[in-house]
C-alpha cells in the first residue's frame, strides 16, 4: 500500500490560526484530538449517533466524527476548550456544574456546544424544545432531567 495520502490545511481553531498536514481520511475529531491536543472533544461512537464529538464548524454544530479534517480547510472551528469565551458557553458551563448536570462528563462537551447553539437561536426555549435540541446527544449517566434544568437555568440567567 502507498504512503498515507495527506493534504495541507489552514484553519482557525479556537481563535488561533492553525496550519496542519492531515491524512485525507482523518476525521475532524481525530485531528483535533491527536493533531492539536484538543482532547475535550470525545469520540463516543465514531458513527454519528452519540454527539460526544460535537464541535462548531463555521458557526454550526457538527459531528466531528462525520466530518473530515480536510473539510476544515479555510474554516473556523470551535471546541469545548473555547466555549467559556462566549457568555452563552460560560453560562452553560456554570449551570451544568451547579445543577450536577453531568456525571462521568464524557458527553458534556458535546452537550454544552449543542445547547449553546440552541440558546443562540432561541433564548427562551421550552423544556420540550431543549429535549428536542439535545436529542442527538447521548448521556448514559444523568437521565437528562438535570441537563434540561441546567439549560433552562442558563437561558434564564442570560435573559436577565
Amino acid at each position, binding site marked *: 500500500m502507498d504512503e498515507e495520502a495527506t493534504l495541507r490545511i489552514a484553519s482557525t481553531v479556537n481563535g488561533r490560526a492553525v496550519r496542519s498536514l492531515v491524512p485525507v481520511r482523518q476525521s475532524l475529531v481525530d485531528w483535533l484530538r491527536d493533531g492539536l491536543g484538543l482532547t475535550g472533544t470525545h469520540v463516543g461512537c465514531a458513527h454519528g449517533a452519540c454527539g460526544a464529538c460535537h464541535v462548531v464548524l463555521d458557526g454550526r454544530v457538527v459531528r466531528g466524527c462525520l466530518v473530515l479534517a480536510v473539510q476544515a480547510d479555510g474554516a473556523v472551528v470551535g471546541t469545548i476548550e473555547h466555549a467559556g469565551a462566549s457568555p452563552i458557553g460560560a453560562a452553560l458551563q456554570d449551570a451544568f456544574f451547579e445543577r450536577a448536570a453531568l456525571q*462521568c462528563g464524557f458527553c458534556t462537551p458535546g452537550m454544552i456546544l449543542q445547547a449553546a447553539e440552541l440558546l443562540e437561536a432561541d433564548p427562551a426555549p421550552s*423544556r420540550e424544545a431543549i429535549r428536542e435540541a*439535545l436529542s442527538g446527544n447521548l*448521556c448514559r449517566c444523568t437521565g437528562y432531567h438535570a441537563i434540561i434544568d441546567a439549560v433552562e437555568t442558563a437561558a434564564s440567567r442570560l435573559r436577565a
Partner: protein
Amino acid sequence: MTAWIGRRLPRAETRRLVAGRGRYVDDQAAARGGGGESHAAFLRSPYPHAEFHFTDLEAARAMPGVDAVLTAEDLVGVCRGWTCPDLVYPGLVSPEQHPLAPGRAAYQGEPVALVLASTRAEAEDAVERIAVEWEGLPACTELASALEPGAASVHPGLASNLGWSTQLGTDLDAVFAAAALVVEAEIGFARVTGVTLEPRGLVARWDPSVGALELRISHQMPHQLQLHLAELLGVDQARVRVICEDVGGGFGLKMHVYQDEMAACAASKLLGRPVRFIADRMESLMADIHAREHIVRGRMAVDAAGRILGFDVDDLQGLGAYSIYPRSSTREALSALHAVGAPYKFGHYRARLRCALQNKVPTGQLRAVGHPIGCAITEALVEAAARARGEAPLAFRRRNLLAGADQPWTSPSGARLFGLSHHACLERLEAMLAGVDAEVAAGRAAGRCLGLGVAALVEFTAPGARSYGASGAPVAAMDSVAATLEMSGEVTVRASVSELGQGIRQGLAQVMADAMGVDAGRVHVTSGDTQAVPHGGGAWASRGAAIGGEAAWRAGVALKAVVLRAAAALLQTVPERLRVEAGRVLDEAGQDRMGLDEIARIVTLRGYELPDGVQPQLSVTAAYRREQDANLPNNGIQACLVEVDRDTGMVRVLRHWVVFDCGRALNPLLVEEQVRGGVVMGLGEALWEACEYDAAGQFVSGTLADYRVPMSAEMPDIAVALVETPYEGSVVGAKGAGEAGACAAPAAALNAVNDALAEDGVVMTALPITPLAVLRALGRV
C-alpha cells in the same frame, strides 16, 4: 456532626469536565519510551462458533506502520489463560479463556488476532489483510432452546449446555393448592449492555528493564485489576501499577477480565513497548459484557384476605460462552432470585435456576445486578393479584409491604431485611400521585391509551466479604482512606473507592469535612491509582458511601485526634478541652486558639516548637469492613405513567416518580441524579434496549442506531423524593444509592403498559416492549 453531610453541593471536580479538561484514558498524550506506542486493533470472530487457522499473516505484517501481528501462540508463556471456578457455586462449568482464542472461537466478537501499528487506522487496515480459514461449527445462541436435547454444543465435549443449576427454598405445592388466589407471570428479558459513553480503553507500558507494568485504563477497580494482572502475567503485585483517571461511565461493565485488555497488556510485555487499545463502539457493543438474558416464570399465592403466601419462581439464564472472570456470570441470577418478593412479607419461597451456556459474549454484572429481574417478576405478580382481586394496586401493596414492626426479618428466601421504610415511601408516593388517577381517567375517556404502573423495590447493597471472599474471587469488600493534613490546612484524602461520575469523591469530602472539622471545599479527594491509594474495592454494588464513607469518617476522626494532641501539646492543655471547627482549633470557651495550617507548619517545618516526645503523624489511614449484616438493603417505590399508541405500538413515558430511601444521603443532589440516571437506564431496558442476534447467531445490534439507548426527547421529567432511614450499624448511616433507580423502573414501566392495555385484554410478557410486540399483542400485525 452534620454540617456538610447531607448538603446539596455540586461536585468540585466537574469544573474540569465542563471545561473540556477531563483526563479520560485516550486523552493521555502519546506514550513515549520503548520505541513509542503501538495502537491495537483486533481481528474478532465473525462467527458465533468456529474453528480457524491462519493461512497468511505476512501480508498483514507487511502493511505500512505495522509493528506486530500476534495470535494466541505468540502469547503462550506471556499471559496465562483463566477459568472462573466459584467456590460458592460448586460444579459451575467454566471453560478456560485466553487473551486470544486458540484455534476455536466460541462467540462472535471473540478476539483471535491482534495487530499493533503506528495508528489505529493502520492497525485496522492490517487486520483486514489477515488471511484466516474459518470452519463454522454448529452454534447455540437462543436461550429458550439452549438446554433442549439436540441443542448444538457451545463447547466440544460438553454433556449439555447447562452451566449451573440450583434449587432454593422449600416445597410449597400444598400452600399453592390451598391458596385462595394464585397468579402467574412469565417475562422474557432481552440481553442488554452498559454502553458507557467512554468505551473500554487502556495504555499499557511494560518496562522490561525492571519487569514492571504501568497500566492506564478506564476501569472501576484498580486494585482488583492489579491482582489479576499480577496473576495472569506472572508479575509481582507491587510491579503492577494501575491508574484510572477520569472514567467515562462504568455501570458494572468495566470490572471484568476481558480478553482484549489482557491481550493488549500481554503484547506490551512481549514487545517491551507501550500499547494503546481503545475499543470502538462496534466492538464495545459486541464484546463488552452483556447482561440480563433471562426467561422467568413466577407464581404467587395469595390468601382470601389478600395477603401474599408465597412465591414460586423458575429462572432460565443465558450465561454466554464463558462464566465471566472473576465474579462469574451466575451471580446475576442468584441476585435476581434473592430479590424476588423482597419488599413483602410472605411465608413460602421456592426457586429453580438453570444457567445455560451459549455461543454469545459472556454476561456479567450490570447496574443493579439481577434486581430488575427479581423486581419485575415480583411486581408483575403483585399487579396481577391486585387486578384479580379488583382492588387498587397501592392498597394491595400497603397490606403486604414489610412493616417497620416486622423488622428485622429474615425472609423465606434467606434475605435479611431491616431499616426499611416501605410504608413511609408509599405514603409519599401517594401524595406525589395526587390527581394522576383523575388525569388517567379523563385521558381514557378522551380515547387515550394511558397506563399507570407501580413497583416497590428492595436492593441489597454494599455486600461484605462473605459474598466474593468466600467464592475465591479477588474482590475486596473493604475500603481504605488515607488522610493527610497539608500545611495549607487543607486535607488530602486518598481513597480506594473509585469515581466513575457518581460523585463519591464529593461525598467523601463532605464526610471528611464533618469528621475533621474543616470546610468541604478544603478537602481534596483522589482515587484510582494503586500506587497512590491503599487497597480497597473500588466501585461495585453501591458501596462507596456505605463502606468508603465509613472509612473516610474513621480516617477523619483519627486525624483530628492527632491534630488535637499536637495542639494540646503546643497550647499546654489537654485534647479533651479543644475542638476543631472550620479548620480552627477552639478551646472550651469557644476562643480561637490556632489554625490547622499552623499546626501542620509547626509539625512539618518547626518541630523544635513541639515538646519532647511528641511526634504527630499528619497522615493516617483507616480501613473499614462491616462486621455485621451481609449487605445493606435499601428500599423505594416508583410509578410510571405511559401512553401507548395503538396504531404504531409506540410507548411514550409521560412521567415517572420515585421515592427512595438509601439511609443517610451524603449529598441529596447527587443521590437524586443517581436515581434519575438509573431510572432512565431501566426505562431503556423496558422499552428499547436489546442485544439482538439473528437466527444464524449473528449479532445485529452493532451500532447505536441498532442498539437503542434512551435519548432526551423520549425521556420524561422524573420526580424524586428521598426518605432517610440511616443504617444503624455505622456512624455515617449510608446505604447504597447508585443502582436502585435501575431496579424498579423496568417493572414500573411494564406494569404501566399492561395497565394501559388491560382493557384490550393484553399482557406484555417480554422486555423490551417494542412497538412490534405491542402491535402483535393487539392483533394489529
